[in-house]
């Protein structure tokens, strides 16, 4: 279970998070939506400890994340970065197998490669891609390699920052299904950021909407349409008019 309590974060004068409270139950899929630049990526990075909150606490399974041993803490996580963040000096399979090849439970190169190729297949990439370099891939392919890397070591907790952005509708469907599978079959806890409402419905158990630095609405995906919340309504229907200003 992941729990955020009153998390604040500012960059200089830019107040991004102003007291985020959110609970993600174990083994469930939480989707975070919200306008561009509202701090969704920053919130994920706060949980991972890549960004240090100015105030508030973040608990994972009841333990404060700042107090734990970083390596073993992060070993439970997988993260797909919004920009992919692939290592461009390493080939695709070495990227995917990065964690598999180091640490206490390191696999042999042959084994690591096998797992990498299998994970690539699951995100819809052919084995031939394994030996290419990230710079030789299209944007959507890079995204999927990033996804394969995030799930390579079967983490307990997985964060996906816009997993379907830049993918064609069919591939987006494949990825949505994959994320659902990971949660249902492997019992992982997932937090996904997306702007794609089809994805939200396909992936989410629960939805949270971030706006103005706080969680404006959160609840099960089934209650999303009848929430009566004007912010959420405007967002899910993509209306230009409403309480959320178009220029931010």
């Amino acid at each position: 279970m992941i729990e955020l309590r009153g998390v604040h974060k500012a960059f200089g004068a830019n107040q991004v998070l102003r007291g985020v409270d959110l609970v993600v139950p174990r083994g469930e899929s939480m989707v975070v939506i919200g306008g561009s630049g509202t701090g969704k990526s920053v919130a994920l990075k706060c949980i991972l400890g890549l960004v240090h909150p100015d105030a508030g606490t973040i608990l994972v399974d009841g333990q404060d994340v700042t107090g734990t041993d970083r390596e073993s803490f992060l070993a439970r996580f997988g993260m797909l970065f919004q920009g992919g963040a692939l290592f461009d000096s390493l080939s695709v399979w070495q990227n995917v197998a990065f964690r598999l090849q180091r640490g206490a439970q390191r696999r042999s190169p042959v084994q690591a490669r096998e797992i990498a190729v299998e994970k690539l297949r699951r995100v819809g990439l052919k084995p031939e891609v394994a030996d290419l370099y990230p710079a030789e891939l299209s944007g959507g392919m890079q995204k999927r390699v990033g996804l394969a890397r995030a799930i390579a070591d079967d983490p307990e907790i997985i964060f996906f920052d816009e997993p379907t952005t830049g993918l064609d509708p069919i591939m987006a469907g494949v990825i949505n299904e994959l994320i659902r599978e990971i949660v249902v079959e492997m019992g992982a806890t997932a937090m996904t950021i997306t702007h794609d409402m089809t994805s939200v419905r396909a992936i989410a158990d629960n939805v949270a909407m971030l706006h103005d630095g706080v969680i404006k609405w959160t609840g099960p995906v089934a209650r999303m349409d009848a929430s009566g919340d004007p912010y959420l309504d405007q967002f899910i229907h993509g209306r230009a008019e409403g309480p959320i200003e178009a220029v931010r």
Partner: protein
Amino acid sequence: MLTGLVGGIGRSTLALLAGLGRGVLFLFRTIAAIFSLPFYIREFGHAVLTIGYFSLPVVGLTALFTGAALALQIFAGGSRFQAEAVVPSIVAIGMTRELGPVLGGLMVAARVASSIAAEIGTMKVTEQIDALVTLSTDPMRYLTAPRVLAATLTVPVLVAVGDSIGIFGGYLVGTGRLGFNTAAYLQNTVDFLETWDILSGLVKGAVFGFLVALVGCYYGMNSGRGAQGVGRATKSAVVSASVLILASNYMLTELFFTG
């Protein structure tokens, strides 16, 4: 007016001290990373190749021309008091003690500090450093330690090669243009050169190599956002590395050759 001036000086002094503090902290973290496991041998090998091996041509050429020019100058200067005969020994001492390490260090600063800062800076702005952390890999151990260690060990080798090529450049000019006898030139070089001349230059090389890679990594890791941030990091790395080389060269020379 005056308070504004004082305030400005105060602020920039504080900023300088804060920067110095961060730099020293980074230095300690680097040393800790070098002396702790895991050691990334592949990264180290790659760094030795890019920092050491691929710098050979530029360091060699610099040394060759410097040695040659040095021979001409010393000949011209020496002839004012009939001391042309000192050319071989002064070329050798000048190259090994001073010009080999300093010019070699500066060339490595231009080549290596910039490329390290640009590479790590790009990794920083494209979130690759964050990705490393989430994959339970310490960027200081994975990126900084191998590069700094590789530079510290390979730059002395580069300096040694540069010394030899520089002396050879002096020899070419001395025997070809200034009328020195080949055997006498070599004899003269060997007779007056002491082990410490060479050794002190190699120690300087190690210090310069350490500084170059350290500064490159520091600016890369602290790169600002976007292409502009990387550009600025690269520029600052080269400038700082060069200044640090010249300043530390003076201090090392003071340490080695006075008192």
